[in-house]
């Protein structure tokens, strides 16, 4: 079935529909990962976005039960060059086409995704729509469509839930978390309590956790102002670790600024340097906003990591508190595991803090 990908600047790309036969509107972004479409499509950070893959063959290994990054995918659409005719992998349970239909997400294939990628690279990420026919007012209507700002609220859990284990008590504040964060913490035996995005500091403190994790999530960090006072309070008392949106909120809470990038970082070949050691990890990334380097000057934050090519702020640490964050995904999924040592650092930080707390109690 013929469908069209229409961009807000009026560019029209004809293609063929797959997935759900519905129309959609979202911000069109591209991801350069050559594998990992299942993880990306189910990554809630894509909530509100139409996700385009630069790798031309998508769906080759189907969809399996293990690699979901959320229970319900929330991206607005999927754009590919070619969707696999037949998936082949021992874990595959259904085709990508069926999965998107099941989740009511429209897709469009037979698109010159490289042309669209270059267009976005030059013009910046922009609103787009996938439609059955291009009407005279399609572009105008697209232009005036306001994309929802409540994407975090949509993506976050509304109820607290536990994921019990025997290790340190960690509160996970869910801004639209990827399961991989829970997986990495669970692998390290953390006893998890996941709380909604709008949890207050006192609610967290009431649980007396050993550490707090601020997760990834979709959209503009400035649309989640409720988190900032929470962070400012919690970081004083409890080791805190932010990832992606969590990193941006940590920066905002401490007086730094964020900005919208031209087309963001989405993929998993971004080299990130740890400034103190020079160590470079290839990292999985998915962000359209970033922390302004200049804005760090008047804050108590220091930059710990940078992207080696464009200098993006990739990691922060608080000068006084046991609090740090990274812009990228050390939890990978999809992408390289190079940076999973960051989770060990979080565990170590919590342990050190415990010791310090006990010592200070003892000394008192």
């Amino acid at each position, binding site marked *: 079935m013929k469908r069209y990908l229409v961009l807000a600047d009026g560019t029209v790309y004809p293609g063929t529909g797959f997935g759900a036969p519905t129309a959609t509107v979202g911000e069109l972004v591209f991801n*350069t990962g050559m594998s990992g479409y299942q993880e990306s499509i189910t990554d809630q950070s894509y909530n509100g976005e139409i996700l385009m893959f630069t790798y031309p063959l998508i769906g080759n290994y189907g969809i399996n039960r293990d690699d979901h990054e959320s229970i319900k995918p929330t991206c607005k659409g999927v754009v590919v060059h070619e969707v696999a005719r037949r998936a082949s992998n021992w874990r595959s349970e259904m085709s990508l086409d069926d999965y998107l239909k099941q989740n009511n997400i429209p897709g469009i294939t037979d698109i010159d995704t490289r042309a669209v990628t270059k267009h976005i690279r030059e013009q910046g990420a922009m609103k787009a729509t996938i439609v059955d026919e291009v009407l005279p007012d399609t572009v105008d209507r697209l232009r005036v469509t306001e994309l929802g700002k409540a994407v975090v609220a949509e993506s976050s859990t509304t109820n607290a839930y536990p994921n019990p284990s025997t290790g340190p008590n960690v509160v996970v504040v869910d801004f639209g978390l990827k399961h991989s964060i829970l997986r990495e913490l669970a692998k390290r035996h953390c006893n998890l309590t996941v709380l909604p995005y709008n949890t207050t500091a006192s609610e967290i403190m009431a649980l007396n956790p050993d550490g707090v994790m601020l997760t990834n999530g979709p959209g503009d960090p400035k649309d989640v102002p409720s988190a900032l006072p929470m962070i400012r309070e919690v970081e004083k008392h409890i080791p805190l670790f932010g990832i992606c949106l969590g990193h941006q909120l940590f920066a905002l809470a401490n007086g730094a600024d964020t900005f919208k990038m031209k087309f963001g970082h989405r993929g998993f070949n971004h080299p990130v340097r740890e400034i103190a050691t020079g160590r470079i990890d290839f990292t999985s990334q998915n962000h359209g906003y970033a922390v302004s380097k200049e804005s760090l000057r008047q804050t108590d934050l220091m930059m710990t990591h940078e992207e080696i090519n464009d200098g993006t702020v990739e990691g922060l640490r608080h000068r006084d508190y046991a609090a740090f964050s990274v812009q990228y995904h050390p939890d990978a999924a999809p992408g390289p595991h190079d940076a999973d040592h960051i989770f060990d650092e979080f565990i170590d930080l919590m342990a050190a803090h415990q010791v310090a707390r006990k010592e200070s109690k003892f000394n008192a």
Partner: protein
Amino acid sequence: MPKRTDIHKIMVIGSGPIIIGQAAEFDYSGTQACLALKELDYEVVLVNSNPATIMTDKEIADQVYLEPITLEFVSQILRKERPDAILPTLGGQQGLNMAMELSKSGILDELHIELLGTKLSAIDQAEDREQFKDLMEKLGEPVPASGIAHTVDEALEFADKSGFPVIVRPAFTMGGTGGGIAENDAELREIAENGLSLSPVTQVLIEQSIAGYKEIEFEVMRDAADNAMVVCNMENFDPVGIHTGDSIVYAPVQTLADREVQMLRDAALKIIRALKIEGGCNVQLALDPHSFNYYIIEVNPRVSRSSALASKATGYPIAKMAAKIAVGLHLDEIKNPVTGTTYAEFEPALDYVVCKIPRWPFDKFTKADRRLGTQMKATGEVMAIGRNVEEATLKAVRSLEIGVHHAEEPSLRAVDDDQLSDKLIHAQDDRLFYLMEAIRRGYTIDDLAELTKINVFFLDKLLHITEIETTLKAHVDDIDVLTTAKRNGFTDETVADYWHEDADTVRQFREAHQLTPVYKMVDTCAGEFESATPYYYGTYEFENESVVDQRPSVLVLGSGPIRIGQGVEFDYATVHSVKAIQKAGYEAIIMNSNPETVSTDFSVSDKLYFEPLTLEDVLNVIDLEKPKGVIVQFGGQTAINLAQPLADRGVQILGTSVADVNRAEDRDAFDKVIKSLKIPQPAGDTASDEATALTIADRLGYPVLVRPSYVLGGRAMEIVKKRADLDHYMHNAVKVSNDHPVLIDRYLVGKECEVDAICDGETVLIPGIMEHIERAGVHSGDSMAVYPPQSLSQAVQDQIVTYTKQLALTLNCIGMMNIQFVIHDEQVYVIEVNPRASRTVPFLSKVTNISMAQVATRVILGQSLREQGFETGLAPVSDMVHVKAPVFSFSKLNRVDSLLGPEMKSTGEVMGSDKTMAKALYKAFEAAKLHVPSTGNVLITVRDDDKPEAVKLARRFHALGYQLLATSGTASYLTDHGLNVAVVKKIDGGENDLLHQMEAGQVQVVINTVSDEEQAADDGALIRNTSIAHGIPLFTALDTVAAILQVRESQSFVTQAL
């Protein structure tokens, strides 16, 4: 860390002659490495014995030694040059082995020379099977159950425990030489015996078979700061069991979920870190298609064939980066030359699919064993880029130049089902075509997956191709169907077949509907960053990215995959042509399909189109670029064959006109030319059917030389001695027709020589005459040759020069030509004229110091030879003697007869230069690894014609102190002529028969000229095969024997009793 300043002078070891498993890819990587080191201001000393390479051009290194890569010569050069360090990781297995040998000899310690890139301990850990296994165990990385065997009995013992099948891998050999899969005791005994003798340390690994697993490769890099990254991952179409060099390979991996990719990536990085390699490394893994189980198969601690492929597949120049890392630079300090803005510390993201298909020599070695296994057999490969698997695959298929333009081999339609399934299970080089045939016959892809273990994902792509075929047939002149077909890689020619039209009609139809290809850039980053790489591939899509430059351009057609008869020499000429075009102020555009070569390095030309060299694909590029013209002289027969069809469609062919090319190549037209010039040539004629052929031969008298017209490398060329043999040849060796006549010439016994000439229409420059050491009858590509000529009289040389001048001017040659002569009774006869650059261009360019391809290109572009400072005639010679010697890959190819004849069999060449003929010959033999010890036993078996001459040679061996052995027939003849000869026992499988003697090291030289057809009883082929398997120097032409004797004699004193 910035580059090291404690070292100044670095020796780079090249890979030597091209053999199966170690080919042109090392010219590419070596050239890149030398240039990278020079760029960093190091003084570079290069040693490589292969003259046919760009790498051994003067400007690539500060000092280029075209000398044998042996301990003797490399040590001498080290003492003379005193480099601070050696970089051995870019010269293939040869480079590593040489480094090990040098180290063991103690010279590196003595001269305080450091090894860069990979430490000796790492080479050992990666290549010594036992140490490798230990390391993997330490790292917790799984390897298949295996045992080390130093004897056949140990091998059998392992298989007893593990059960069959088992894989045998000899230690320290390249390209899987001598390896194989054994299904039973007998097979294991044979393979292990062979493998043990080929392994320099007499060691083989016997390993549990994991045939059927997915074979995955990772190309990884690491720097001294322990930064490590993956440049490219690849998935083999053929599962584990077939050597990756013989497998169809896709990049990136196609059927692995991210979790599997990352698991294997972790393993690959862990290994390169453990080996502490500073540079590039290749890790091969086997992944269970039904679980997360995987095994590490092999690690190459150096730049490899796969890394050349990965470089071309991604645009990321691995060898260049590896060289820079080896001298201390870190990945995050080196700019990515592709983007110019990002750093080399970047894992490329592809937005296309790459397909590599190996090119096998079985079109020439028709009797060879075509079964594929762990021993690599391909001589070359093609790569194609598309936006899906179907497109990349079909583009690769038509790049192979095996006479098909689609994944369909019509002759397989006649194959019965039993044979079909046999060929599916027991893979040969042509399995892809059998698979296509099976699918067309209605085999389900699930059944095929069961039979072949090939992933159903790939089979589904083949099924898709056949579905498009069916749709095409049902919808003639349907633009939508055609669009689908084109997007999936179909050629106009294939569509035309289904539509019962001709390809031009389809093209016109397509163009009328604006269905034309676009060209997309290979940029390492999937479009994320702006790049300026002039590296493109064609596809049927929306947006074209290849911007046509305002400057006038010239298109050079490359020579496609490396095969016997068309080797790296043509890439050499192509690259030089490009340089000359650039110097003349034009934009130089290259089209080629071979990932192993220097010409497909995007930094060589102004623009590279990585595309098949077919008429359609070339026309498409011409339609976009509108070049001033096309140069076809340097791309071998591949490019020359396109000249006529391109000219027919109005394309300007630069240089010798197509009509004149035809006058040289068409037998009748050429006869007229040569008669009008009164130049002698062996009597001959052309036959279009069997009967005429016999009549002609009767008239000429036997022996006759027969060959099909329009071939390169003497394919199906034979010397036929009697009528019955000719009859057999006409029925079996060739398909004769009016379009494909057979040439029959009287066979003249005599000295052969050849010249390459450059002509601008007025002046004829002859850079040199090369005299062949073997007499006429051995293909010129397989002959040893010497420059300047050593035994040609001045009169003969004058005749050669005169005839060359006459032919060049009469044939209106503009650019290069090559002429082959035979000298019979002091009279020069012309055998053949090739109106293009020949395989001797690099050798002659190097020894004469005339950059022939560049001179010829300037001529083609309009600058006369006079303007370039050349006069008509033979260029002056220096006081050095240069010998070119062929190198063969017989040890990799079962059932290929090593007896030399008119069909070319060599895969590469070496050169030896010195002040005297004997010294130059010695070097050439040493470089070709034909080392004849100064004492020992010489085994002689010759055919009747050769016996009188053999007596003289035998006497000379005897005089030098060698013992003579001979098979009964030869022995009695030699004895009758007064020689003391030991008769060897007949080959009867007995304990003391000849083969056992050879295996036991009791034979040092084998001379054997008996072809199997003549005297099967003499076991000619068996003796030859045994000597090849055991590395015993083998001579199949008496002239070569005379040459080696000349060497030995020059090194010996005469001891004579009073």
